[in-house]
Structure formats: C-alpha cells, structure tokens
C-alpha cells in the first residue's frame, strides 16, 4: 500500500467567517472577514482585543447533551466540523471493514478555556471541586478521541502538535495511515483558546497585533505588518484511499500529492547562518514528493505570519523556488486570523475549493507590500484561474516548517 493515493472526499468547516463549508467559502470569496472585537470575554483590559470567533455557534444545536459538560468549546467546534465532513463525504464508516477507519488531528494548546475553569476551581475552592472530565477535556488528544468515539473509528489514530504547522503534519500522517492499509482517515484540526488565560499565554508570545481596527490589525506581507490576530476554528477533512473512494463512487475534491516537514536551527546558531532556510527545503521536498516542478503550481497559500521578519523569510523562500512574482500567492487567513492547529487545515480546504471552482480566494486588507517582497499577492478580489495544483505552507512557532501539495482529482 506504499503507493496508496490519498484523496479528499469530505470537508467540514468551523471558521470565524462562516460555520459550515458553503457559508465560509462564500464569505471567503466575498472577502468578508470574521476578525472582530472579542466577545467571548471582556478583553478591554488586555492590550490585544481582536480575534476571529466562529459566529452563530449554538453548541446545543450540534452536540449531544451528554457531551456538553465534558467538552471545551474548541472540541465542540471540532465535533461539528467532523459531522459536516462525514455528511459531505456521504459515507458511513460502519460500512468499512473493522479497524479500517481512524482519526489523526492536529492540536496546539488543547481545551484551554475548560482548563481555565478547572484551574480556577482548584485554586479558588480546592482540589475536590475539579471536574471529573478535566483529566481528558483539556488535553491534546481530546479531539481525536471524541471524534473516534462519536463516529466509531477504531483504526490507527494519532495527534500531532507543531503549533500552526500541525494542520499539514496531521494530514500527512493521515496519508501514511492510508499507505499502511487504512481506508479512511478523519483529519485536519480545529483549535482555539479565546479565554483570558489562553489570551495571556498568547500575549506572552509577543507576536499579537495590538491594533483595534479589524481591517488594519493582521496585515501579512504589508509594509504596516504588526503581528497577527488569533482565531478559533479550522477544518476537518475526510481523506480516503483513492481506489476505495472510487469504488464507492465518492466525489473527490483532490489528492494530497506531496508533503514535507523541516525544522529550523536555532536563530543565531552556526547552522542557522549557513544552511538553506527550512521553509524553502520543505517546499522543494514537497514538490519532489508530488513529482511536480515549480511551474506546475498554480497558487501558494502562504503561512502569512504577519510578523515582518517572518513574512520576509517566507516571501524569500517562495521567490527562491518560483522566481519573483511568478506564482499567485494568497492568505485567506487574513479573514480568520491565525487558527493554530486549525489554520493549515482550513487552508487545505480553501485550496481544494479553489481547484473545484477555478477561483483563488483573496487576501484582504493588504494595501502596500513591504519593500523588497516580490510576491504576486492575490488581493481584495478572488482571481479566476484554473487551479490544477496548490501549495500550502505552514509554520509553527519555534522552527517547524511544513509544505503540502494538493492537486485536482487525476483521471483514471
């Protein structure tokens, strides 16, 4: 099964600019942003006050009652997206052979809001007030476990944590599982830690945008870039072995054709000064894995950090591989904020729909590229253009780089 081809057959989305795939995709093509003043807690006393929150999410509408006391907000979003992905793929894993289906998700910080409540109970009242669900509701494996239970998925499963690179790493791990003989893997990532404690941790990272104007806060590649706005949500994707998907007549969005991950040497070290930048190596390795050349790529979904020196490093990696302004680059995450483990999964969903609709979704709010960045940024309006292959980039804080190539369904 080493040669097993992995195809995407289902998409479920919980994004700050739309709950459900059709609502989010329409908003994305219209350039509608979900970045707004924080409503989940009173952020007025914090120096950063904007976030991407999933709108109109009524947990009781999507999640069985018995699961409500044992789930963090981000797990509820993940379960909702997983249900949509299954509905979209129009498949019932119970029809598959035993152990043929599993779950591999990305995680970054776990159920932080749930964790804050229990820490508060512990320190304000005492250990005996801590919830019986705390042992698993906050931890990094919770979404994989809950999705596995809800959908009866008993095959090989997993959880990867590489901050914002995780969405791609999880999907690549899902492809490994298909190559190992699994037929269907639920993958992607849904994340979020928009609570005072999570916010404090993110502020400590020193890269949050402190702007109050939602249209001027998260400006990757812009001369006025000043950090990023975090968000919640992401995407859950169904990845199936291509022959099995074909046999059941599944609609195929595209194929995960290439992937690679690298790690950066510590800044300032000898290796850092002498080596090829990790992101560029990841791109080159992912293209080689896909058997494609740079000119085969029709669009790059950028990691788009919003931190000037990281934007520059990414732009230089893209330019080094593709040439100056030789490939359209976009960052629809300018409409959602950075979603950590959910970010790259949502970008993969966008890449698949860009292939389907022959439309590159736009980057919003960028008015002037930072000096020296030679990018063809798809700005403001979606760009009609055939998309046969898309490259998705993601970086996790600390030096994690990942690159994935998705291509349209190949004829058989």
């Amino acid at each position, binding site marked *: 099964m080493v040669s097993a081809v992995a195809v995407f057959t289902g998409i479920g989305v919980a994004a700050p600019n739309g709950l459900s795939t059709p609502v989010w995709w329409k908003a994305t093509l219209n350039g509608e942003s979900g970045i707004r003043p924080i409503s989940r807690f009173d952020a007025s006393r914090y120096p950063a006050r904007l976030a991407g929150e999933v709108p109109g999410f009524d947990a009781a509408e999507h999640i069985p009652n018995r699961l409500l006391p044992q789930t963090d907000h981000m797990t509820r979003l993940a379960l909702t997206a997983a249900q949509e992905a299954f509905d979209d793929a129009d498949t019932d894993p119970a029809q598959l052979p035993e152990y043929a289906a599993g779950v591999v998700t990305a995680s970054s910080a776990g159920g932080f809001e749930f964790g804050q409540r229990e820490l508060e109970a512990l320190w304000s009242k005492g250990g005996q007030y801590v919830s019986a669900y705390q042992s698993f509701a906050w931890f990094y494996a919770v979404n*994989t476990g809950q999705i596995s239970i809800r959908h009866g998925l008993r095959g090989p499963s997993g959880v990867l944590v590489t901050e914002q690179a995780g969405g791609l790493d999880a999907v690549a791990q899902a492809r490994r599982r298909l190559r190992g003989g699994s037929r269907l893997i639920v993958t992607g990532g849904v994340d979020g830690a928009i609570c005072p404690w999570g916010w404090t941790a993110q502020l400590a990272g020193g890269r949050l945008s402190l702007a109050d104007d939602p249209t001027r806060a998260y400006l990757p590649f812009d001369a006025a870039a000043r950090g990023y706005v975090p968000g919640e949500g992401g995407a859950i994707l169904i990845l199936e072995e291509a022959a099995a998907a074909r046999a059941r007549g599944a609609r195929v969005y595209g194929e995960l054709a290439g992937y690679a991950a690298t790690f950066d040497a510590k800044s300032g070290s000898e290796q850092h000064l002498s080596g090829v930048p990790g992101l560029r190596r990841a791109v080159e390795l992912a293209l080689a894995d896909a058997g494609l050349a740079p000119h085969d790529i029709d669009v790059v979904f950028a990691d788009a950090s919003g931190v000037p020196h990281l934007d520059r490093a990414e732009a230089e990696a893209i330019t080094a591989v593709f040439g100056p302004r030789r490939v359209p680059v976009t960052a629809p995450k300018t409409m959602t904020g950075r979603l950590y483990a959910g970010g790259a999964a949502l970008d993969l969903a966008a890449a698949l729909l860009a292939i389907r609709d022959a439309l590159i979704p736009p980057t919003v709010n960028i008015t002037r590229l930072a000096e020296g960045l030679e990018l063809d940024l798809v700005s403001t309006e979606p760009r009609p253009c055939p998309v046969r292959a898309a490259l998705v980039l993601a970086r996790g804080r600390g030096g994690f780089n990942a690159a994935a190539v998705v291509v349209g369904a190949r004829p058989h």
Partner: protein
Amino acid sequence: MAITGIGVVAPGGVGTKEFWSLLTEGRTATRAISLFDATRFRSRIAAEADFDPHHEGLTPQEVRRMDRAAQFAVVAAREAVSDSGLEAAGALGAAGALGAAGPDPYRVGVTVGSAVGATTSLDTEYRVVSDGGAKWHVDYTYAVPHLFDHFVPSSFAAEVAWAVGAQGPASVVSTGCTSGLDAVGHAVELIREGSADIMVAGATDAPISPITVACFDAIKATSPRNDDPEHASRPFDRTRNGFVLGEGSALFVLEELSLAHRRGAHVYAEIVGFASRCNAYHMTGLRPDGREMAEAIRVALDEARLPVTAVDYINAHGSGTKQNDRHETAAFKRALGEHARATPISSIKSMVGHSLGAIGSLEIAASALAIEHGVVPPTANLHEPDPECDLDYTPLVAREQRVEVVLSVGSGFGGFQSAMVLAREGLERGTW
C-alpha cells in the same frame, strides 16, 4: 530499525544505568509527594525524579525557559546521542550535540511524545496571573516571558531539536498515555519512508502538579495508599487501588540497522513491529474484552513477521487500576492464546509509577535493556495475585533469562491502544 542510543531521566535516578539498577533490583521510587504541598489531596504519593537541571548541564536560561518535562527531554536526548556514539563525530557546540562533522542535520528528525505537555508550569503560572484563582480576567502583566512555550508543547520538540542540532522533521506526538510508544512508532515510520536517516525520539512528562493530582483524584484513578507510598503501586495485585503518578523521560537514537553497522554503533535492539488502535468506546473507560489492544498486538507481531510463540517477555501497561489490569490480561489472552500463560509479563509502573505519556518510552527502554542484559524486570509489590489476573506477572524478583523478543503495550485516555515489538539484533524472522 535499530536503537543505538538510550537516554533516561526517571524516578530513582538520572541516566540509563540508574534506571536499570532500580528495575532489576525491584526497588520502588514511589514516595510522598515533595514537589508541592499535597496535604489536601486524596492521593498524596508519586514517583518523583531527583533531578537538578543545573547539575545535568542545562544553562540558567535553559532552566528558566523550559518546563521540567522539557528539561528531562533535553537531558535524556543528550545522553541518548552521546550513548549512540554520534557525538564523537564532532564537538559539542553551536551546531548541537550531533556536531559539525556528524550526520547531515537535514536528515535528522525529532519526535517527542507527551501526554500533558507543560501542565506543571501552566498550573504554577495560572496561580500567579489569577492571584490564586481569584480572577477570571487574569492579569497578563504577571505572566513569565516564556509562557507561550508552555502553552504549546511543541516547544518540547523544538528544545530537543536545538539541543541535538536536528533540522529534519520535528514534532510532538500527544496521544495520552500511549504517547511514548506512538512517538517512537512515528519516528520509525519517518525513517522507513525516507524522511530522515536518524531520529531522536521518545517521550517526556512531568505531571506531578496540583491540577494533575486533582484531576485524577476526581475520577479516583490514582492510589490513595498514602500511608505506604513505597508499596502503593501494585499492578495485578488483588489489593491494587489505582495508579501512582510518576514523571520522567526516555529518548532514543533510532536508525536503520545498515547505517548503525556502517558506523560501528552498538545496537541495543531492533524495533520490528508497531501498531495502534482506538477503542471508540469511552474517553477513560476500557471495553473489558481487550479486543482493540489484542488487535494492535496481532498486527504488530504480523509486521514483525513473528509468531505469537516468539514473544519472550511482555512489558505490560500494568497501571494498577482495577479496570486496566483486567483489560490487559484479557487482551494478552485474546492475542497470544495459550502462549500468554507461558510468557513472563511485568509492569515497571510498580517501581517508577505512571508518568503518563513518558512511560511508554521508559518501557521501551526497559524492553531494549531486557534484551541487552537477558533480564526480565519484575512487578514489585505483587504479593496477592488477583484471581482475574491469572498470568505470570514476574512478581517481586527479576529473572535472568534469554530475551529475544519483547512485546511492549500501552493504553491511554482517548481510547488509544498501542503495541510495539522489539527483537534482538539480527534475530531471524519469518518471510511470509
């Protein structure tokens, strides 16, 4: 796939040698919790590591920025790399422990398993920013500068990668209490598929904190035998009443056998099979028949091209909860049939406690050392066998015997069930 380096930080001592002495002597490292004042908790005992990061060579800034679990991992990684002989290829320095003249850093990857990440630092820092839980809107101005690195445990993999100079694929694997097995399984897969030549892989956890103790108190998963901590972890014993929390880390240097031979490295053991399954049953509960664990064992032995009768020793999950030990016994019988009765089994958790995600890697270390030294470590504190756990759990005393093949298993919250098969280097295996 060869294990050519082992590094350990465990209760009872830092270093592989100390760890193996403790296990083979059947000593226990469980004691009253000293890391914080546990007076008000139900379970006030744990297996703690006596660990001084400064003494272990971490710089003051490394100590300041890293959670205890990350410190463990970096120390274990350095021991593993040094043990593997890779360090000799170049000087320690800015280029990391692998050295400037060592292997291509782009071909060296890192995988660190952890169940609960920097939960201990998060607990400590939360207490400050919330002023003892008094404020929902916590005061961010009291946060330490490295709080973000505690927020995302991927920082553990970054620290290890920096420490050894790796620039290949790096990640944290977090599948609850199977993280330690799954992280190493993942690393093996990355080498096999050609994404790396060498992986520094293993797991770490340092969960002995008020919030972790409280959350296990809440579900009565941990032992309340506070008056007798040394004998509190009693896997497979009729009187067992929960697991004893532990901490620690084990990291390995993994590489293809051919590469190990080429550079004349010592090979502790080969990893010849790995599989995992989910029970899709309950986040903390186990299906009594053990069928998913049995399936993982069956598939791992298949991959190893070994019959069930080849298994010489089973390194059990053996947490010491009523539920787990029965579940696991059922799984062994289901997977190995009659051979389950003829195979020595043991749980090192009886001695080093249950360090959540880390323990799977500590158990791989114990399994590799069992092959290396021809010794099966015992299950300490097993005096009164549970009639429902009716296999040979190697009570109290280690056994010297030839060990060619070890099966190591794990079971975790979230429903994860994993199995790994280790074999003596060069052991002849089937070709079917």
